[in-house]
């Protein structure tokens, strides 16, 4: 299998605080990888570095063999490196359809059109209708995002990600904060993601990790301490220590 994304000794420091240190791993087409780790391990920082929100302080990132370390967010998105957010970030005053349509139009380069109606162009409409349908939220197309329930917003976040035709999709805790009865929908949506894209998911919920991932990366104190199958991760002594350590810390009075 070909490598889509390759991290080579990627580091990120905030002043003297080294949040990510020498992180190297590869994602290939079809990969389903979970990134786990205790709170404060540096998972979200890593996603920000990969997606281009934060420049790394060391190391290189390659997408399909091209060095993308110095590229900004929009360039990475155009090359197929797409992320979703832990806390939903949507266009709150626009409708669900418009949110997805914008992503479709941006990908097709037609947001430079100044004079045609936005969401009703057939080549755009077809796509957002299909995406909202796949995620089971087609009936919400005309509803403004700020009026959607949180679980529905998470699904919409996924729909926007997919509308960008990602090659590599980074999911930052896609099920976080979703009410219990809506969580299965998110999981179904994730399981039905196109088979040929690489997906890296940050997740706390171990049930979800076991159902989803074929490979698990464990981040602790900014370092990658484990890479292997979900079955092996629970028995790894270093992983156990990292998690126990963080729980021990949490119990210490502030």
């Amino acid at each position, binding site marked *: 299998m070909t490598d889509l994304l390759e991290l080579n000794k990627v580091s990120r420091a905030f002043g003297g605080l080294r949040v990510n240190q020498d992180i190297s791993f590869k994602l290939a087409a079809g990969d389903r990888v979970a990134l786990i780790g205790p709170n404060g391990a540096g998972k979200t920082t890593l996603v920000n570095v990969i997606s281009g929100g934060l420049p790394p302080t060391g190391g290189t990132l390659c997408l399909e063999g091209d060095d993308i370390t110095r590229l900004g967010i929009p360039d990475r998105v155009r090359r197929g490196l797409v992320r979703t957010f832990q806390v939903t970030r949507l266009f709150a005053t626009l409708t669900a359809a418009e949110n997805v349509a*914008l992503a479709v139009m941006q990908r097709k380069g037609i947001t430079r059109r100044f004079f045609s109606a936005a969401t009703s162009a057939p080549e755009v409409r077809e796509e957002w209708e299909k995406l909202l349908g796949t995620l089971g939220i087609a009936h919400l197309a005309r509803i*403004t995002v700020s009026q959607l329930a949180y679980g529905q917003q998470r699904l919409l976040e996924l729909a926007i990600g997919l*509308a960008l035709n990602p090659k590599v999709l980074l999911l930052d805790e896609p099920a976080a904060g979703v009410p219990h009865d809506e969580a299965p929908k998110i999981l179904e949506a994730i399981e039905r993601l196109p088979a040929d894209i690489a997906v890296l998911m940050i997740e706390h919920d171990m049930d979800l990790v076991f159902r989803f991932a074929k490979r698990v990366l464990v981040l602790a104190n900014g370092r990658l301490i484990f890479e292997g199958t979900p079955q092996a991760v629970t028995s790894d002594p270093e992983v156990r220590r990292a998690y126990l350590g963080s729980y021990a810390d949490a119990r210490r009075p502030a």
Partner: protein
Amino acid sequence: MSTLSTVARKSDGAFPFASELTAVASIAALGVLGYLLFPDDLAFLTRLIGITLLVLSLDLVTGYCGIATLGHAALFGVSTYAVGNACLGGLRDPVALLGVGIVAGAIMGIVSGALITRFRGLPQLVISIALGQLVAALANKLSSVTGGSDGLSGITPTPVLGLFHFDMYSRTAFVFSLVVLGIVFVLLLRFVRSPFGLLCQGIRDDDLRAQMIGAVIYPRLIIMYAVSGAVAGVGGALNAMTAGVVGLDSVSFERSAEVLVMLVLGGAGNLWGALFGGIIFQIFEHIVSATNPFHWMTLVGLLLIGIVLFVPRGISHGVAVLWSKVVTRGGQA
């Protein structure tokens, strides 16, 4: 906003040019109404149209892109001076002068946009004020171009299309301005619903998300500023041509602040809001200042406080909420 958008979007698939026709009919009706209400004061209505175009222009950057600015009169003022000079220099055809205003406004829009959209929040607001003050100071000092505090006078355009003379009752000026307003408004209605317009609204809602769908933000905002400048330029050109004089008031801080108030009053992020905000504020101001020259500012202040208390998101939003209530009640009955 939510109820407003659902109301507005119901008409989407119904009929291809429904909203455009509504706009043309509404502006024509407003024109007739204005003529009936103020038959002896068409000069006031003409000035009102020029300023209303500036409110629309401001709505494009503030309402649709979320850019805070208190220096928008600069775009208007620069084009009034450009048109004034062009006319005094011999280019006296009204349509050509509109073109001059549009180009001058757009250039000023690009310059201000390039500077103002570099910043966010309070620094952005301060930069916009500084830019406005800079233009105002230049207008005062460069008296060879601007006439300084005396301004430019004797701006007399030739008849519109060679047929309609600018008469002393401002009939031609009023109808000409109204037609131009109608054209600009219809074009803008399409523009804000275009893919580009929608992306600008997306940037307003969350610019990081906009980048995460692959949009490069800065050039988009500058383009929007250029369009906004062109619209302000139309207003400025009309103002210079129909008043015959250009003065420092057209670049003043008060003008910038006033149009922002009109926009908030009508409802930012909605062209109808900008239109009605401009019209209602100026008519109210006109009537009140005529009937009570001593306390009119107090009354304008009270109107604003009332609006902010009862319809904080502007008149257009309040009307849309009312309308959707009427519609649902009608549906249940």
